[in-house]
């Protein structure tokens, strides 16, 4: 579906995407993970044929975006990071008009609009204007709108950012259904739970480069241990405790308020800590998540 080789995007002297290789296969859900400014959105815009690559090669659906932009876009669905709904139109009209941008017949988009309003659970708001809708409703409408041309490939840029937990779960459910019906999903996110829920395969981007690649399971296996033990001590500085525990775990990370011990058996390690006579205020053994991988790979420093 997507084949990028040494794909690069520069804005003046700034390199937003630095020579990345990506292959996305038909029917899979593929994720771009990374902190803000990692180059995810720039990559998505190039795939969406609205931003010409500065260097490298890019093929989408077997076509070249520079030559066949309109033909490719006709087969894509795009959900941008920020909702760009048409506020001068009603909910239904947003879908109707968007369908007409694809050159679809009026009769076809009318039928399609009813179906999509149902899918997005917006049927009873069909004739409302867009402005008073909740964030979740607007997001669902944006997704419904992006499906009007029955896309083979759906691009979602941070689909659930800014939504409450209920709205996120509704959206995930809709995206699952789309994937089951054969639509290829490509999404960016910085929510680890979202990536674990939705993605078959993903890449982690940082500073415009790909720093890791694989399924969520593979990445956890490769870049983290099976479990993580979190210890909190009654001290302002946790570093001295870390020094006493380094041999108990494969890796020990010092945070301002706690220690993270990367280990294959959290409970056994917790017992070993107790045996050393150290008494943490709290002990939590949990499974590793993609978040551990992510923070390990992209660092804990705040990036903006």
């Amino acid at each position, binding site marked *: 579906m997507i084949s990028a080789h040494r794909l690069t995007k520069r804005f003046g002297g700034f390199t937003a995407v630095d020579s990345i290789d990506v292959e996305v296969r038909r029917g899979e859900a593929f994720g771009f993970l990374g902190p803000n400014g990692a180059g995810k959105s720039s990559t998505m815009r190039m795939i969406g044929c609205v931003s010409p690559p500065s260097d490298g090669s890019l093929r989408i659906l077997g076509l070249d975006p520079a030559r066949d932009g*309109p033909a490719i*876009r006709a087969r894509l669905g795009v959900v941008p990071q920020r909702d760009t709904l048409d506020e001068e*139109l009603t909910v239904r009209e947003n879908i109707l008009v968007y369908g007409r*941008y694809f050159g679809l017949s009026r009769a076809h988009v009318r039928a399609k609009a009813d179906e999509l309003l149902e899918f997005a659970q917006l049927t009873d708001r069909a004739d409302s204007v867009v402005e008073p809708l909740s964030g979740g409703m607007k997001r669902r409408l944006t997704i419904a709108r992006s499906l009007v041309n029955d896309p083979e490939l759906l691009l979602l840029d941070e689909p659930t950012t800014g939504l409450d937990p209920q709205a996120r779960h509704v959206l995930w459910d809709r995206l699952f259904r789309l994937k089951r019906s054969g639509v290829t999903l490509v999404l960016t996110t910085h929510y680890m739970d979202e990536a674990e829920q939705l993605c078959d395969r993903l890449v982690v981007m940082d500073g415009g480069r790909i720093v890791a690649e694989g399924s969520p399971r593979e990445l956890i296996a490769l870049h983290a241990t099976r479990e993580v033990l979190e210890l909190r001590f009654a001290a302002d500085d946790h570093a001295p405790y870390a020094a006493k525990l380094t041999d108990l775990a494969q890796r020990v990370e010092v945070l301002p308020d706690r220690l993270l011990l990367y280990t294959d058996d959290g409970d056994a390690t917790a017992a070993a800590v107790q045996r050393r006579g150290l008494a943490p205020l709290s002990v939590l053994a949990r499974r590793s998540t993609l978040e551990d991988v992510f923070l390990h790979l992209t660092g804990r420093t705040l990036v903006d």
Partner: protein
Amino acid sequence: MSAVAAVARALPIPAGAGLARALIERNARAFRHGWITLVSGVFEPIFYLFSLGVGLGALIGDVDAGGGRMVEYAAYVAPAMMAAAAMNGAVFDSTFNLFFKLKYAKLYDSVLATPLGPRDVAVGEIGWALLRGLLYSTTFLVVAAAAGVVHSWWSLLALPAASLIGLAFAAVGMSVTTYLRSWQDFDYIQLALLPMFLFSATFYPLSTYDESIRWIVQATPLYHGVAMIRDLMLGDVAWGILAHVAYLAVMGVVGLLFAAHRIERLLLR
């Protein structure tokens, strides 16, 4: 089709999918929710016609419409009002409305994610401005005819002529809008429009000016618009009118291509 596509690629014409009509349809739908803007566009030239043409015209009497032919002032000024209204309508649509869609509504960000390209955006928006303009100029012509200031069947050609004025100004207006940064910048547009409205041989003949400055007036686009429509409405048609047509047509086509190019530069980075 592929030959056309090949030519389009060879020329510096920004890409499009030939779907500009979809954008016109979008604007028509949006317009149904805000039809009040229509009313002001209809009445503006009519108010001018009655205030200046009929009211002030009673004091002025007849004027020399060129070649020693005398017409009543209302018949003299009516074509100028039609031309100026075509200019104002086109500029309003392609500056204020476009700026809002470009910067705030982010309309074209979603439009360009579909097969539509920057050329479709330029053609669609300008096409819509022309359709609205046609509605305004038609109402104006009907009212002017009813008021008895239309003297020639050539006047019917004033309708496409007004659309040509609209094309020229909408295309340039759209290009200018892509450079504007804030609402304050719109004062520059007013600064260009108002003197054109007042001094383009709109209210009095070009011969009023001293020989040495006539060329400045003749260089401005509204002068050509006014002269063209005045020739038609007074039935004074000669080959010379084609110079006005050519001036405005070139301005329109160059402006449109440039506007599409600017949309591409701004949004497809």
